[in-house]
């Protein structure tokens, strides 16, 4: 039994046939999901920064 390289491993090999409908269906939700995940993570980070800046850093006063 010979071992065939996966299509992605070699540009000379033909890729698997892509089901255009399935791809279109995935592409409708994947960018939105990625945006929600990344946006949520960044929102949490920014909220944490704002909480520390406004509730901890500023009340402690200037040191300069």
């Amino acid at each position: 039994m010979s071992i065939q390289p996966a299509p992605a491993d070699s540009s000379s090999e033909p890729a698997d046939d892509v089901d255009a409908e399935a791809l279109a269906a995935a592409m409708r939700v994947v960018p939105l999901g990625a945006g929600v995940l990344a946006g949520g993570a960044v929102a949490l980070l920014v909220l944490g920064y704002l909480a520390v800046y406004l509730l901890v850093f500023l009340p402690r006063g200037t040191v300069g």
Partner: protein
Amino acid sequence: MSEAHTDIHEPRILATELLWAFGVGILVAATLTMIVFTALTRGINPPSNVERIDPKTLHLSGEFAEHNLGTTVAPDGSVTVRAIATQFMFAPRCMAVPQGRRVTLRFSSPDVIHGLLITGTNVNTMVVPGFVSQVHTEFTSTGDLLMPCHEYCGLGHSEMWATVQVLPEQDFKPGPDGRVSCAQR
């Protein structure tokens, strides 16, 4: 993926990325605006005192001579703390400060770069040989605060720390020479 599929999805991916970049740009601009606004209206700046001093003669004479280290209350009532950061200790190891009064902290180093922070306050500065690091603060609550070196300065770095003892106003009593030491407990 074939060329046709790439052509269909690429504009949407580009639009999503541009939207993301726009959102991040807004966040960065808002953060910078907030920092600049507080710097201008409330004087919130990083400590930037540029004052030179000779590190070779630091401990021999002048402001940072041994007898001058620690807490001093001037005749006008202003409180100044002077300390040397050296491998691998702060001199003095304990500094007494009053609660609720503006305190000036001055540090210098005769050897390598050190740094310090005082826990629970915004005091946080580098101590660079050849310069005096100066910060001001007001301690709001009494108690002992840890002041560690936060810039790696050698093998003994982790042992390099001091205590800032915040005393209530009635316990902060300068001697006849205007000096205040940590209360013995």
